[in-house]
């Protein structure tokens, strides 16, 4: 909301410069976001919090400023005494829904001369960013800003038979509002109607049919209280937020309606002439004021400061609260009606703290609470994963959890069990990602397009699954992706491959203390049938690794070779063993023996290694593949594999003979089972 410095000074005797006032208001909770200096004036852009509708007016802001600074408040003086009658010649008001409209006043003013507004009025409205319409309409707007009470002037002669009915709209009922738009209403919206039609959307906007224009002579000035929730619903449904609806949504001061109506009537007859006629005021009178009690000890305990009772009473009195009773330890206060936000003791504590000054409250340190587990396992494990991966040269990425359906399709991921967003802003936010892979491929694309040669990325984040219409799951996953080449002037360059990524995954799992990991050829829509493996931990499916399918790469417009992997972090958490235990380094030396075999091309490394392990005794400590060859030196359809086997006995130095026997046994087994031949 805007507040003009000049206009504000109409209501308060204050000499402070604009900047100083802005700071004072800000430090009282009415934040001044910016100050615009215009000719002869300064306009504040203020941010009024939802709890303080009483600040949505000049009088409200002046009242606050007066309470804080002690400067005198100057309320506009009403020169003409208002008339009041329950009935009026030829005018009647009926409220059909007293819940949505507890109070309605209609003031009749006859014989006005609608015309251009005087310059001072135009200037004031311009400062608020409003254009002048005519003197009568401008005065209602002026009074809205001055008093915070939205009012509406109807052309009385256009109100059918002078009858005002406050009722619910019938479903589909239409009204053309003063902005010229025809709007269709729903049954629950409150309207002001005459016997034939709706003539205004209550609290939101007036209708064009009863609009005040230059030919208007007699007016009916409405000042009322409309239900906040109902006004808000209507305003939201119509996507029509006005200065009026904004205030009704936040509750207007029901006790001040008549004052505002009288003030507007005064100004209208002053500026547009005419005479103030009868007033129809129906509905409930404002309820009795609330009384809240405050214990000084409680106040001081919450704030951590000693504020003297006299000071507390002074602060609350300045804010318009009336002291009702006072004992040594506590006092009770009557709250002005416009302070809808004050209902409980804590609300008074806040008022005292706010005006006393947060800056005067001391700085203390709470006593430390004994909490041994300061990091949950999940957090520790993911932190460790990040450490290992960055140590392996991987850069961490964070991609959006919301993605477009298109991305899912592009990655050939099934559309089953997807959590869908009901109100996305763009097509890129339609669904919650069921996989980290689309985001990873996007990040890879972004970087290869920018000529990154050596790309190593990972992400840890949730994926989302819709289990049923009322059950959603979040699962923590890890994605890995590499592309480009390893190159150095010394070693030359080598394109990265599947086994680089597999090595990263294996190292990660090993470092997490996970032992039983296996990679098995797998098929998956997202991956190429040539290069895809499932990752299993202790036989549980834990992830997938490979080369994206050609169509996936082309959907993402990636031309480079990339390798990707996705692993369940929950599986890592389940099997991780982060307890470190010391194992004595071997005392006796190892004996290394190589084994070079020629086997059929379709024989799997895992099967060969498995057989070697199964055959060997306890002595065999490690098997390492050190060479793999296929080409001219070996027959067609065969490959040559060289393994380095490590033998060791923990209790003595191994003898040559023992090792040779064991080694020969392994070779024999390989020959029998796989037809493998020793290669010389």
């Amino acid at each position, binding site marked *: 909301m805007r507040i003009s410095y000049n206009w504000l000074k109409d209501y308060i005797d204050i000499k402070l410069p604009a900047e100083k006032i802005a700071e004072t208001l800000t430090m009282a909770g009415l934040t001044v976001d910016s100050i615009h200096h215009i000719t002869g004036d300064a306009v504040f852009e203020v941010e009024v919090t939802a709890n303080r509708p009483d600040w949505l007016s000049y009088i409200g802001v002046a009242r606050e400023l007066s309470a804080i600074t002690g400067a005198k408040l100057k309320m506009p003086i009403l020169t003409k005494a208002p008339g009041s009658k329950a009935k009026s010649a030829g005018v009647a008001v009926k409220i059909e829904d007293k819940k949505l409209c507890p109070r309605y006043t209609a003031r009749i003013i006859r014989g006005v001369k609608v015309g251009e507004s005087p310059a001072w009025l135009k200037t004031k409205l311009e400062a608020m960013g409003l254009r002048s319409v005519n003197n009568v309409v401008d005065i209602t707007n002026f009074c809205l800003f001055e008093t915070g009470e939205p009012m509406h002037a109807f052309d009385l002669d256009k109100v059918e038979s002078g009858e005002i009915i406050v009722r619910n709209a019938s479903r589909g009922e239409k009204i053309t509002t003063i902005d010229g738009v025809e709007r269709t209403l729903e049954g629950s919206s409150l309207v002001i109607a005459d016997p034939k039609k709706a003539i205004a959307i209550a609290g939101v906007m007036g209708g064009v049919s009863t609009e005040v224009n230059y030919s208007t002579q007699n007016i009916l000035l409405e000042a009322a209280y409309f239900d906040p929730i109902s006004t808000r619903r209507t305003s939201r449904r119509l996507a029509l937020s006005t200065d009026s609806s904004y205030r009704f949504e936040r509750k207007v001061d029901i006790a001040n309606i008549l004052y505002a109506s009288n003030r507007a009537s005064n100004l209208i007859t002053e500026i547009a002439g005419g005479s103030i006629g009868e007033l129809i005021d129906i509905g409930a009178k404002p309820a009795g004021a609330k009384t809240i009690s405050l214990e000084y000890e409680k106040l001081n305990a919450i704030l951590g400061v000693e504020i003297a009772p006299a000071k507390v009473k002074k602060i609350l009195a300045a804010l318009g609260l009336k002291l009702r009773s006072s004992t040594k330890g506590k006092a009770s206060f009557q709250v002005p009606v416009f302070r809808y936000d004050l209902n409980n003791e804590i609300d008074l504590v806040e008022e005292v703290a706010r005006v006393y000054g947060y800056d005067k409250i001391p700085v203390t340190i709470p006593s430390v609470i004994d909490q041994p587990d300061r990091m949950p396992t999940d*957090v520790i494990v993911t932190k460790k994963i990040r450490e290992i991966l960055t140590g392996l040269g991987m850069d961490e990425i964070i991609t959006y959890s919301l993605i477009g359906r298109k991305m899912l399709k592009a990655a050939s991921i099934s559309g089953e069990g997807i959590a869908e967003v009901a109100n996305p802003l763009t097509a890129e936010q339609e669904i919650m990602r069921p996989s980290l892979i689309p985001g990873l491929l996007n990040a890879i694309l972004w970087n290869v397009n920018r000529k990154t040669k050596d790309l190593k990325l990972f992400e840890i984040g949730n994926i989302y699954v819709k289990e049923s219409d009322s059950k959603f799951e979040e699962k923590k996953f890890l994605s890995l992706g590499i592309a480009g080449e390893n190159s150095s002037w010394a070693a030359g360059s080598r394109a990265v491959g599947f086994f680089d990524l597999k090595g990263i995954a294996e190292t990660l799992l090993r470092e997490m203390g996970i032992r039983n990991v296996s990679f098995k050829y797998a098929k998956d829509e997202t991956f190429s049938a040539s290069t895809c493996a499932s990752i299993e931990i202790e036989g549980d499916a834990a992830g997938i690794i490979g080369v994206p399918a050609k169509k996936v790469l082309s959907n993402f417009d990636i031309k480079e070779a990339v390798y990707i992997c996705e692993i369940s972090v929950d599986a890592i958490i389940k099997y991780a063993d982060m307890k470190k235990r010391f194992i004595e380094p071997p005392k006796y030396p190892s004996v290394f023996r190589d084994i070079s075999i020629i086997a059929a091309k379709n024989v799997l490394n895992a099967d060969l290694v498995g057989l070697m392990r199964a055959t060997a005794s306890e002595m065999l400590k490690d098997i390492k593949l050190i060479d793999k060859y296929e080409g001219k030196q070996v027959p067609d359809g065969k490959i040559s594999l060289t393994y380095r086997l490590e033998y060791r006995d923990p209790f003595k130095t191994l003898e040559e003979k023992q090792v040779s026997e064991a080694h020969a046994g392994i070779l024999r087994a390989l020959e029998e089972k796989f037809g493998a031949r020793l290669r010389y």
Partner: protein
Amino acid sequence: MKNQIKQLEQAALQEITSAAVSKDAVEGLRIKYLGRKGVVTELFKKMSELPASEKPEAGQLLNLLKNTVTKALDEKLNSAAGIEEEKEALDVTLPGILSKPGHLHPITRTIDEICRIFISIGFRVVEGPEIETEHYNFETLNIPLEHPSRDAFDTFYLKSSGKYLLRSHTSPVQTRFMEKNKPPFSIVVPGKVYRPDATDASHSFMFHQIEGLAVGDNIKFSDLKGVLSIFAKTMFGKSIKMRFRPSFFPFTEPSAEIDISCIICGGDAQKIGGKRCSLCGGKGWLEILGAGMVNPKVFEKVGYDPKKVTGFAFGMGVERIAILKYGVSDIRMFFENDVRFLEQF
């Protein structure tokens, strides 16, 4: 013989010193003195001709001579080797062979740093779900349905039969945690949050928050000031000033917004040459946090007795902190994942 040995020692040492510093020259001298027919070797042979009484002393002296010559020759050889190695000196200005380090995402770094500060003053880290219900996202936090206080929390909803949504703040973890735990405790909650905001340089529909909550029988507003002051000074430097402004959040009361003095101009335009500060816009203050004392209504919703416990809560946007800390100009960069950006952290 004694004299003969002494003379030979002098001559040998002199010849070794003045000889050329090369492997070949040293080898030549080694043969001359220590070879099978070398001068020293010959002297050893002559020892048999000495009377028995002189033999021990002569033997001792000869051994000393042999050691001295050997040592001198070895030293010469080392120098020769040094000169030869020098000829093959490596071009040490060639670039090192890179072992490229990986980098944590700046948001992760910032979350870690913030959590570390709070852990050091006794807080524990807790996480909560991103898919939430209206109950936890709003109702338990005293944000009623169809109330203007919801305006600050535009929210993504999911297509579902219940009112499932993407949490628009990390605060729902407050009430989730309180329902399952008894005070006293102090927790920090990092995580992703979502709001349907149009994306621009300072808005993102997904971002991260860190929530804090401390509840006990004697937690005061002054404690909130103390804890946040430790945080701000550790995060942004000792000279940072803080300002608590009254504000409104439905789940805290009294509520405050917390500003720190501008980390570029410190509120003094003179410091940056009288120009309008690009970071704070000349205000001198930067908003970093929202906080307050837990509203008794929130305690009531989780079954705590507000007469017996008090607490404070705070929340901050991680991207905002990272933007200030690292001087990042556009929030979108955090999610583009350009390695030229990521590798700076």
